[in-house]
């Protein structure tokens, strides 16, 4: 009996995951082999959907673009997130202040995603606040067009949205670093950069790993940000899937979803090989 006990304890979660995660994913895989016309799904086993994914240069472009978005966002959020976390963990000494500043980091999440994105328009637009201010100050003559409805705008919105996902885990690992290690480093003659590189950074790796997984997975699956901030000028895999669903091309969307899922899983697996996030847990 006692041998079965752990299994019983894990059963409810396993059951929930099986019902609401594995079965739907299994269905998506099944549907991705279906045929379709403009009216309905035709249960079948065809490879056309995958052939269309891999044979079309546009899909390749879109996948590359998505990876490019994810990579760039990852770099910027990592740079920003690391220093924000560093400031919170090591520079701010007072616990209350630390709390207040931490809460400030969550400000972007106080309104709905959609409203935040729409709010960028009057700020970044051709006649927006930023352009008017810059023109008024004499810095530029013509309004900067690239600020809105461009890849710049997409990356900006991603960074704005996801930096917090980087800050939190890195901050968490930093707070666990034994301060005596830093003192020891200083006593042993290490300067600021050497301490950072040889002590803090290696000990933050699990946090960076978790943050990276969050950011990369979120960006890879995004469709709303890309559509609204690029004004429909750029495409991401998520947007492509959403377009296909909108046009009732479910098998094509399912095939793309399967490919995207495989890609994201590979990326996450690669990250887990480099960084052991279990140290964090």
């Amino acid at each position, binding site marked *: 009996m006692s041998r079965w006990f752990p299994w019983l304890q894990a059963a409810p979660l396993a059951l929930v995951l099986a019902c609401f995660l594995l079965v739907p994913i299994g269905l998506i895989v099944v549907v991705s082999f279906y045929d*379709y*016309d*403009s*009216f*309905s799904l035709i249960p079948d086993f065809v490879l056309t959907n995958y052939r*269309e994914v891999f044979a*079309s240069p*546009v899909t390749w*472009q*879109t996948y590359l*673009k998505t990876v490019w978005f994810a990579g760039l966002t990852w770099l910027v959020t990592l740079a920003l997130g690391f220093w924000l976390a560093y400031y919170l963990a090591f520079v701010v000494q007072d616990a209350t202040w630390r709390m207040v500043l931490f809460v400030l980091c969550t400000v972007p999440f106080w309104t709905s995603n959609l409203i935040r994105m*729409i709010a960028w*328009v*009057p700020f970044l*637009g*051709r*006649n*927006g606040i930023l352009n008017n201010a810059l023109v008024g100050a004499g810095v530029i003559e013509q309004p900067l*067009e690239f600020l*809105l*409805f461009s890849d710049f705008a997409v990356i900006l919105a991603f960074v704005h949205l996801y930096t917090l996902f980087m800050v939190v885990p890195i901050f968490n690992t930093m707070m666990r670093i034994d301060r005596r290690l830093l003192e020891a480093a200083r006593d042993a003659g290490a300067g600021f950069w050497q301490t950072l590189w040889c002590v803090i950074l290696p000990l933050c790796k699990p946090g960076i790993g978790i943050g990276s997984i969050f950011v990369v997975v979120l960006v890879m699956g995004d469709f709303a940000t890309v*559509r609204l901030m*690029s*004004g*429909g*000028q*750029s*495409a991401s895999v998520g947007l*492509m899937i959403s*377009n*296909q*669903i*909108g*046009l*009732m*091309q479910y098998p094509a969307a399912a095939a793309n979803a399967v490919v995207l899922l495989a890609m994201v899983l590979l990326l996450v697996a690669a990250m887990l090989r480099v960084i052991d996030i279990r140290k964090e847990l």
Partner: protein
Amino acid sequence: MTEQTKPAALTRRGALALAGATMGSGAITGFPTLWAQNIRNVTLRQIGTGVSGLNPIAEQVKKDLGFTLQLTVTDTDAVAQRAATQARSFDIADIEYFSIKKVYPTGALQPIDTSRIKLADKIVPIFTTGRLTPDSAAGQGTSPFSVGFVESRDAKAFAGKRTELMTLMPTVYNADTLGIRPDLVGRPITHWKDLLDPAFKGRASILNIPGIGIMDAAMVAESAGILKYGDKGNMTRAEIDKTIAFLIEAKRAGQFRAFWKTFDESVNLMASGEVVIQSMWSPAVTAVRSRGIPCVYQPLAEGYRAWGSGLGLMRHLSGLELDAAYEYMNWYLSGWCGAFLNRQGYYSAVLETAKANMSENEWGYWMEGKPATADILAPDGKVMEKAGAVRDGGSFQERMGKVVCWNSVMNEDRYMIQKWNEFIAA
């Protein structure tokens, strides 16, 4: 977002539907009009676009008919998608005719018995004969008439002629053209090809709903002399390739500022000055103008691209709820609603009842192309147009008479959408 009720519990609605079904099937006889009291408890769930999913209509339904109309508003593609895949999550689809070409054959809707629509014979002939007047042209594309009727209850193919069974009861339609900012374009706009004028580089937009966007693109391409279509509403693969190629070329040259998908996006693009010339819908022009920003719905030499939508009954509706739905459709044509929609710049399906509900000045301005004799008020009472104003494009006959194509679903639909995605991703 969704308003589905829990499937397990037998809700009040469910019970009513059951009761209605039994009565409808004739199992209970002897008390014929008892349900007239119960109808107050009915809730009809309607899904549609922002075009006619308007709260004042639901409020007036409650007032005039007693039952509740629950509205869900989403975009054109999403309406079609939900109608085809989650047909039971609502009762009435307020859907476009070109979408119905895809959705009706899935069996999600039941046909409408025209003998139960009192004013069926008064509906504008565009819907019943395919022509505005006996000698006008039919227009290319998925015209409402071509998908408006079926032969039998279980038919999946469209009749292509008038029968007793309608797929949709027409509610609202319009002739679309380009919207411009007269203060910013700096020259008269006369042709669809003006969208491609290098002077508007980075300040033009086109809508990103493939079935509609491709038609605007075709109007532009034909106007610019890039290619001549056999039938814009049913392009060949070669025609699609060429159309998309010219769109990609224009996109790479930086002609477009953005692509829009919903009504409000188009309003914001225009009102903020990000865009000065773009595909637009009539009330979006009104919305920009009501902010005090000049905006014109520019009539163009080549004519208009038109669309129409209507109410469809979902297959599962029966009994009391079906009766309520027919009441609602009859009410829709009875005047108040027509006047309400005409005042937004759309056209209603039965004109004479709408006329009776509009003032002479309103009718003259909106429908006859006459200068307004007094201020034209928006439905919320704000002044929309000052006395003396004339509607862009003129009268109903002038505008609907110049329709050259309808929003479409083509035979090469799958290919077209694939190519359209290439354009967006390019």
